[in-house]
């Protein structure tokens, strides 16, 4: 079992994993790594490892779930049994059910479901290893998987988490900081449209702290937007034959 660390930030201002307060973890992104789904993507962010597969637009069963004027979007966020410190029971937890909902609601504004009436678009977010901020990482990868599936989108959705640890506003909390820190706030936006599609908060932030944290999150999302664009570009190059990287690896570039 994990124990509470004595300090989360040392006297030199470094966090337990060596980052500065405002520093994000490195992110690796890869698009199109599975054969069966219509679109797929993999994200590695610190120890977070998440794979997303998208199927659709496809026929919907049972029929009574059809929406006549748009696609139904379905989303499931799932933590693998081995993804956490203690083994996770395979039965869906309330946490997973809530996160499935907020991820869907974070992605819905970006998709153009009116192009695909009477169909369903299924988004499966499989968290293979969880180390804090997985809903944001899942959104980042799901955006890419939707694009990989060729689904029309207004814009990519970028997401990151910010929070407070030992009184400081910090970026991109990892597991221990999330657990023992003072606040965690996941945010998702469509960066080029400047619209917030997800915001949640757990913890305690004064109004001033909230505003600083929010700003940090918006900045973080914009940077992640660039990484997403690069990953898509690499995927395009692969598909158009410009380059031929090892297909199907869980390791990102």
């Amino acid at each position, binding site marked *: *079992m*994990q124990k509470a660390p004595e300090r989360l930030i040392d006297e030199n201002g470094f966090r337990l994993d060596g980052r500065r307060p405002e520093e994000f973890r490195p992110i690796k992104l890869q698009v199109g790594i599975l054969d069966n789904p219509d679109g797929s993507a993999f994200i590695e962010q610190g120890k977070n490892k998440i794979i997303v597969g998208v199927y659709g637009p496809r026929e919907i069963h049972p029929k009574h*779930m059809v*929406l006549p004027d*748009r*696609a*139904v*979007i*379905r*989303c*499931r966020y799932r933590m693998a049994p081995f993804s956490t410190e203690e083994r996770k029971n395979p039965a869906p937890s*309330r*946490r997973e*059910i*809530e996160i*499935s*909902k*907020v*991820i*869907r*609601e974070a992605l*819905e*504004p970006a998709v153009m*479901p009116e192009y695909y009436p009477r169909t369903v678009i299924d988004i499966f977010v499989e968290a293979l290893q969880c180390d804090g901020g997985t809903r944001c990482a899942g959104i980042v990868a799901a955006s890419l998987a939707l694009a990989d599936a060729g689904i029309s989108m207004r814009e990519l959705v970028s997401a990151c988490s910010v929070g407070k640890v030992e009184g400081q506003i910090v970026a991109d909390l990892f597991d221990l900081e999330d657990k023992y820190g003072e*606040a965690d*706030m996941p945010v998702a936006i*469509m960066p080029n*449209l*400047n*619209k*917030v*599609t*997800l*915001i*949640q*908060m*757990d*913890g*305690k*932030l*004064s*109004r001033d702290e*909230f*505003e600083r944290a*929010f700003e940090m999150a*918006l900045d973080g999302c914009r940077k992640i937007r660039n990484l997403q664009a690069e990953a898509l570009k690499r995927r395009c190059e692969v598909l158009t034959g410009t380059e031929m990287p090892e297909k199907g690896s869980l390791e990102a570039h």
Partner: protein
Amino acid sequence: MSMTPQAAPTAKIEQEWIRDLASKNRRIDGRAPSDYREITIETGTIEKANGSARVTLGKTKILVGVKLELGAPFPDTPNEGVLTVNAELTPIAHSSFELGPPGENAIELARVVDRNLRESKAIDLKELCIEPGKRVFIVFVDVYVLDHDGNLVDASTYGALAALLKCRMPECEIRDGEIVYSGSFRPLPMRNYPVPVTFAKIGRTLIVDPCLKEEEVMSTRLTIGVDKEDCVCAMQKGGMGTLEVHEVTAAVEAAILKSGEIRKLIMEAAC
């Protein structure tokens, strides 16, 4: 699996009308955008519960019961009691509510109520420990929605807070490994009083405390929980729409203001 919901059954023309009103900062029941409906809170409704409260928020009716039971603590917090929040959208409360285990809406409701209480450290869970690692009080907060006319999150959290404030825990101690009850009771160790304020975005207007018809028209919902020190302790965006950055910051500001009034009302009802 979370899924795009079916469109609301409200007539399109009525929906248009609500949107039109909103664009003029007006609402179907005559409220201003920043007005709550009438809130009434009664406590002690359920004598067999350790604490209980009935809340009406306009036509929305909620009942909350709190039960204390002895049980084992979580292994990683052996010195703390356990808080468990559960919510049921009973099928009498709305024709669309279905039987069976809680769906995503009931689960989200319970988790947002839970988040408000837990993150504001409303209860000092350490004081619920009887024997470290072995026996602690488990606080079951059960939210029962009886009539649904919108804004269940706020009504439920107000009810949960009032029921907890009224909750009485039996005094007990360990003698020779057995629990001995003194027969007397004391209040729960309440340390904070979180109050969420929920906004709905209709067109480009943010209103508070949406009624059901407004919820059916809103694109986005935003709940902001504020604690007794005017700090934000919980946030939850819902719905398939988006928010502008300035809308979020404006909502935080408004919530901090509004929560004070409502907290006063809850504290009065629960003393």
